[in-house]
């Protein structure tokens, strides 16, 4: 075994080690903790970068050993894993920077950053898991490590949200475990494999496979916030802003969506799942979720709550994309895994900046915020336009690719869903932008504070600016081979075939 085969293990260990070091550091060692955090994040980015380069050249990294008789623990870096790992590593670095600024001067930072690192280690494990069993291991670890982050403030509201969150996610995990054991009982330990394992199965296995599929999707759908399993997500937005950013962009909802991608592509296989008639049902649910989330977002007056319902809607783009069957449509769905992450993290960073700098939580308090915080507001505006799907931003690339994919496979109704959704996106984002830029400030800011020489602390300002730049570049340079879309096309070529 060479050192390069162990790269996935090292990538996982960076955040695990960071977590252990941070837990043992005394609470008041703030500077040292920041150094550990940033070093680990940079190191991980480097390791993931190395793996991406290797995978691009056709190499695969992996380790495995037998855990329980009959089941292996498998870590493996393939192209799909790298999509999620790359997103997670890049956004972890930015979120860490943001969180350091955000939590300045608040208690319990040791606990926060410890669990924060554990949470990122879990997403890395979810990305690199090589079979459903390993995936489940990290999926549950993610649940446990995010709970302390959600209830971090310790208020009654936070504790209630934590309870909702844990009930939903642990029940979802239990359902997922049920599905995995059922699958294991008649098919054995299945490694993730392009094309899946069930091509050309006999008619006697069709019924059990379909039932197991429904159970698996129901288990994963809780984290992916598919309607009607989405109830925890809007409640969980009481968490501190960096946590919301992480939950909505990388960690929790994406873990669910990524799991669905793995199950559809690499356990069942796209064609088998379609032949069993499973994908049309999934497409219908995803389409409904897209519209439902947007409609609910319209009526929210709390900024973070509106963003949360927007997440419910946006994550289902990924799932709808899978159901479009053709390589183009699938690429549209997969690329949204990254695009939605970048856009949504920008929005949450900005919402956090408004809340921390001016004390703004409700949308009707935003009047005139653009003049007071122009840089933050520009980032927010770009991300909002991205969500609506304005060319040439990232969201446009998603919608365009999905649309052409849908037309190619004759699923014209998807166009209608995309159009309706975009109109609704516009309907709930444009009024916000209108208030930010074109209304005069009515009342003085509730809790304004001067923070450094910019409009807010530099730690809080740079992350959204960088992610905003990403979402512009991801759109403008979409045809480049190193853009998210370029990488997704590489995945699709390997997974689905041209």
């Amino acid at each position: 075994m060479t050192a390069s085969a162990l790269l996935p293990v090292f990538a996982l260990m960076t955040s695990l080690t960071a977590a252990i070091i941070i837990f043992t550091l005394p609470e008041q060692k703030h500077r040292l903790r920041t150094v550990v955090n940033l070093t680990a994040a940079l190191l991980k980015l480097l390791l993931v970068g190395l793996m991406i380069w290797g995978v691009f050249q056709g190499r695969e990294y992996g380790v495995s050993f037998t855990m329980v008789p009959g089941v292996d623990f498998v870590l493996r870096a393939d192209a799909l894993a790298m999509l999620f790992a790359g997103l997670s590593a890049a956004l972890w670095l930015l979120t860490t920077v943001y969180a350091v600024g955000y939590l300045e001067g608040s208690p319990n930072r040791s606990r926060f950053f410890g669990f924060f690192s554990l949470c990122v280690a879990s997403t890395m494990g979810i990305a690199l898991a090589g079979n459903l069993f390993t995936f489940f291991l990290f999926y549950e670890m993610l649940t446990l490590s995010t709970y302390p982050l959600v209830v971090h403030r310790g208020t009654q509201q936070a504790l209630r949200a934590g309870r909702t969150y844990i009930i939903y996610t642990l029940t979802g995990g239990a359902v997922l475990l049920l599905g995995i054991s059922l699958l294991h009982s008649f098919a054995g330990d299945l490694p993730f494999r392009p094309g899946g394992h069930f091509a050309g199965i006999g008619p006697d296995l069709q019924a059990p496979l379909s039932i197991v599929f429904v159970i698996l999707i129901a288990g994963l759908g809780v984290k992916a916030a598919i309607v009607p399993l989405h109830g925890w997500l809007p409640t969980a937005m009481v968490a501190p802003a960096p946590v919301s950013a992480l939950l909505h962009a990388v960690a929790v909802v994406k873990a669910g969506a990524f799991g669905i991608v793995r199950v559809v592509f690499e356990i069942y296989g796209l064609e088998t799942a379609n032949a069993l008639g499973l994908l049309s049902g999934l497409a219908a649910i995803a389409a409904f979720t897209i519209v439902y989330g947007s409609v609910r977002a319209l009526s929210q007056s709390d900024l973070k709550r509106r963003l949360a319902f927007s997440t419910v809607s946006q994550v289902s783009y990924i799932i709808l994309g899978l159901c479009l069957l053709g390589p183009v449509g699938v690429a549209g769905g997969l690329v949204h895994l990254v695009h939605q992450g970048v856009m949504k993290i920008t929005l949450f960073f900005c919402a956090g900046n408004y809340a921390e700098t001016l004390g703004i939580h409700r949308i009707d308090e935003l009047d005139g915020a653009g003049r007071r915080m122009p840089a933050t507001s520009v980032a927010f505006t770009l991300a909002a336009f991205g969500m609506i799907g304005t060319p040439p931003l990232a969201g446009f690339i998603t919608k365009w690719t999905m649309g052409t994919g849908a037309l190619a496979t004759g699923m014209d109704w998807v166009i209608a869903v995309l159009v309706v959704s975009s109109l609704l996106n516009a309907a709930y984002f444009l009024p916000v932008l209108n208030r930010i830029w074109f209304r005069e400030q009515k009342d003085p800011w509730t809790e304004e504070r001067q923070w450094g020489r910019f409009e807010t602390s530099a730690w809080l300002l740079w992350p959204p600016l960088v992610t905003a730049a990403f979402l512009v570049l991801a759109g403008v340079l979409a045809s480049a081979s190193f853009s998210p879309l370029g990488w997704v096309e590489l995945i699709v070529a390997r997974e689905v075939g041209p």
Partner: protein
Amino acid sequence: MTLLLMAGLLFTPLAWAVLTLLAGFRRGRGITWLGIVIQVLVSLALWAVVAGEGGFQYPLGGWQAPLGIELRVDGLAVTFVLLTALVAAASGLHAGFYLDPDKQWHRYFWPLFWFLWAGLNVVWLGNDLFNLYVGLELISLSAVGLVALGGQAEALRAAIRYLMAALLGSLAYLLGVALFYGQFGSLSLSGIAFALSHGSAQGAAGFALILMLFGLALKTALYPMHWWLPPAHGIARSPVSALLSALVVKGSFYIAARLWLELEAPLGSLALAQLLGILGSIAVFWGGWQALRQPKLKQVVAYSSVAQIGYLFLLFPLTWNTTEAVALQAQQAMTLQVISHALAKAAMFLSAGNLILSVGSNRVNALAGVSHFLPFSLFSFGLAGVSLMGLPPTGGFAAKWLFLQASLATGQWWWLVVLVGGGLLSAAYVFRVYRASFVEDSNIDHFFHPARRLEIIPMVLALLSLGLGLIAEPVLSVMALVFANGEGT
């Protein structure tokens, strides 16, 4: 070499029991720690011998059965010997720092501790029914004594209740032994199994098995015979609770499992197997539900033991009349559950003890704000909780997974409900404790900080239980080792 090891294993505890009886608390502590080092080393060495060369039958003093006492040193037995050494060492060390040396009666902790350890080793290694009885009695009596060390009237009441249950259980077991002896003229488990497989009489033997299983289930606190456990485990001092929940109930369960696995084919029945499974399932839900409702922290942990013990009884329906592969899966699941629960529960009781020491109250709601002051102990408690919930990568998860697979393979899908639902219920009571500790608006601003060494011991146990799932395969491969000469099972 093996002679020395066996002698060390069985006689050090007895010798140390006598030695510490003569000493006071502080000197007893020193003596005990020396003994712990010896015992752990001997247990490790014996484990290594069996892992390397396979198990063996060991006639004590050179006398062969049926005259002498023959010990059975196989992979499973040495694994449990090692587990006992680990948990007892942790509890013994913890007790040395935790118990108040100035309380007169605390000096009796040490001799009772050593008698308990001796009894446990006898049970793991014993191969005839009477020997097992002696071990069982040694365990029960010292456990009752340990509960009574709590000192208050409530502790004495709990101890008396415990004593009643233990005596009743022993009586039932002994009756069964007598019936077997009357019928087969042998006390050796393998001798009885041999006689039965050659078609001897059945009626009374079947009754004897039921009697013995009843007695042992009572001592293991299977629902609805669990009434004595929560008061006893809840009121005892924390290191004692750890010993009781982690090891003592497992001793009687181990005998029940051995009896069943050797004798189920001729004497068991579908009804009996399912009944035990169903009682276990009720225990899982009832114990979990009660744990959720307890106002006191240690009662939560004690009721959680009632629930966790319930899982063990799934062994019976999953080994009755099933294929060898499934039966093996169920046995592996059972052993993993025994080990992981022992480690996790000991960790949980010890860390709960620290938490109670810190906030000065044993109520769950009093934990508000403790996550600032005692994060380390809270974290140990949490890690142990993860194992109880049966989430990966813990040993509890590995056990649950194997139980799930065995249930699916035999088509007994109803156990799925228990395994999945029970896990969620344990999550509910563990999270209730976390939730209480995360509350910020507490009025208490001074906490007592227990010594760091008190905090490290439960953490080590919790980490072991957490890691067990990752190394389940190698651990199980040692457990599967039978005798080198190929006899027995």
